[in-house]
């Protein structure tokens, strides 16, 4: 996929794009291009507009179907946040995601380094097995993992892990994709650096933490970004392991609210907006890295 990255960079940096054809109808063509692009943008944005607009309406306005609320009802958000317990779900999601990311980063940095720079027996075989797990559909893992987490296959410390932080976080604390990404980066670091570090008496751990990590900000950011999206958007697995509200994350909370809200669409939409905010903030802040990360990896989330 290396060619794709350079392709994206080219398509951005040159900015010239394809030269225009058929000069006679230049302005005509040009405006047609803009019209199509704008129609596309409107279609992409309408659901978001609808969601935000509805979230600020009163119940009457959602039933009589106005396009915009007469007076924006910010109180809807307060109601969703407090009464519909979105506050609880939100902080649950924040904690679950943070814990998952810390775990994910630790395991994938260590493993990525080892696969890229340490010569141990069976390295390639283990790496190949890990990579093969990328094609496994989530569907097949739910049932056995649910039983594992309930403690029915092997007894777990503390009995059942249902409705616990560890059940929500631990399964996502490692994945082959992150290891692969970091492995590729670490393997490129010149060997001379390692030789010099060894002369200074450094071992692998010190070399990793003091030399490799400071220069690996870009791939680490990519791992964090994808890890964040994966964890924040997770739905099926949290749905299975949270029978109570104690650790229920946002996505599951929103889903259970679909049946609870009934006709109160304005509250449902306010809840929906709350689930989006952190993702949108991160997307707008890291826009370039975001799109480039996807083009490099060709990853489908």
């Amino acid at each position, binding site marked *: 996929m290396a060619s794709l990255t350079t392709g994206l960079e080219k398509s951005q940096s040159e900015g010239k794009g394809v030269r225009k054809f058929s000069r006679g109808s230049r302005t005509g063509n040009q405006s047609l291009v803009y019209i199509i692009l704008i129609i596309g943008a409107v279609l992409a944005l309408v659901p978001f507009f609808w969601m935000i607009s509805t979230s600020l309406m009163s119940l009457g306005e959602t039933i009589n179907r106005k396009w915009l609320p007469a007076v924006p009802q910010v109180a809807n958000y307060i109601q969703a946040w407090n009464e519909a317990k979105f506050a609880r779900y939100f902080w649950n999601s924040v904690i679950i995601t943070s814990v998952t990311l810390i775990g994910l980063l630790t395991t994938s940095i260590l493993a990525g380094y080892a696969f890229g720079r340490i010569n141990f027996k069976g390295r390639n075989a283990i790496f190949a097995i890990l990579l093969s797990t990328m094609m496994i559909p989530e569907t097949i893992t739910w049932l056995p993992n649910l039983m594992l987490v309930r403690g029915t296959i092997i007894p777990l410390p503390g009995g059942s892990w249902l409705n616990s932080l560890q059940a929500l976080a631990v399964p996502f604390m*490692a994945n082959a994709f992150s290891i692969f990404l970091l492995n590729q980066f670490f393997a490129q670091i010149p060997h001379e650096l390692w030789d010099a570090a060894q002369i200074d008496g450094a071992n692998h751990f010190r070399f990793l933490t003091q030399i490799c990590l400071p220069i690996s900000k870009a791939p680490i950011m990519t791992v964090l970004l994808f890890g964040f999206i994966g964890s924040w958007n997770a739905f*099926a697995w949290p749905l299975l392991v949270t029978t109570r509200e104690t650790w229920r994350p946002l996505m599951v909370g929103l889903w259970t609210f679909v049946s609870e809200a009934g006709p109160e669409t304005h509250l449902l939409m306010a809840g929906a907006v709350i689930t989006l905010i952190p993702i949108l903030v991160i997307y707008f802040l890291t826009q370039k890295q975001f799109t480039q990360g996807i083009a490099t990896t060709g990853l489908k989330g």
Partner: protein
Amino acid sequence: MASTTNVIPITKKRKVYSLRALQENLTGYAFVAPAVIIILVFGLFPIIYSLYMSLFNWRIRKGDFTGLVNYTKIFGDWGGFAIFIGGLALLGTAYWLWTGAFKSNSNLARKLQIGAAVVLIVAGIIMSMGWGKMVAAGDEDFLNSLIITIFYAVGTVPLQLGIGMIFAYLLYQKIRGKEVFRMIYFLPYVTPVVTTAVVFRTIFSSRETSLANIVLSWFNAGPLKWLFEPKAMSEVFLGLKLEGIAAGPSLALGTIILFGIWSFFGYNTVIFLAGLGGIPKELYEAAEIDGANGWNAFKNVTIPLLSPVSFYLFLVSFIGTFKAFNHLYVMATPNAQNTVVTASVQIFDVFYAQNNFGYAAAQSIVLFLIILGLTVAQNKILGERVFYG
């Protein structure tokens, strides 16, 4: 004397070396251990355990060993299954003949292409025969869910790719606000599917005042039930009364397909945009000298040179639809009945709502084998293809 003095340092060195090798090995294992353990336990072990569970009559608690009974329940008729697999093998043969046609001279190529077409038709007939036998005796719900999955894949993948390619091409022109457009197109893909699926549930609800029905009213069309409509689109729009698979996807599934296109076209736009950056400018200049206009250049330069990217995206997206769950689950309303239940949703239902663990395990093994087959085919096909870059 000289030889003995030489021997000592070598053995010493070897000893030091092996100690260091041991240390390297141990460090390596220690470093990979946390990741490997988590991935083995939560990623690989489930496959083995599903295989094990699928051989039992397992409802919450493990029951009797039943061998292949769960699989027989799925396929119903093993003879029909064998016929279906035979048809699938013929399909592979047709592909083999087709690719062979491109490698040989024009005379033979013609014959091979005709041969491939004939084999393709025969394969189709045999597969549908086998499928008919399976559906008659097997688990209609699960087999039907596979058809629904294919409907969804066929409905969403080509369109999302086509739209993605067009927008990528337009964005690649000399236009203003390129970054803004790209950011907007990518937004539906970035936002959590559960959230956007919930929003689509209200936009495409059966209420007369839902956004979709308001838009219909602009064109003086009556309201539709959208996600809550189990009737086939061929019946709703064309008034045709067809039965079973022939009727095609329901309007509810059609709405989910619309969501799929909306959600994923931006992803394809970004990948295509990257692919466009790799096409040499000289080709467009040459096309211009030859008098090609914008459309001709798009047809004769862009599409052929993007074909490796399109092919990659097609296969990845197609496999992705077999793995997809979240939005399909959220948008599957009870009113739409089983016309929107894809394989992954069906499996979830069998163990989560019906508590039939052994049977769900067998179903998930079947789905896993289908995805495995598709992935192997993908790697083979992509491996054979030439990439222009």
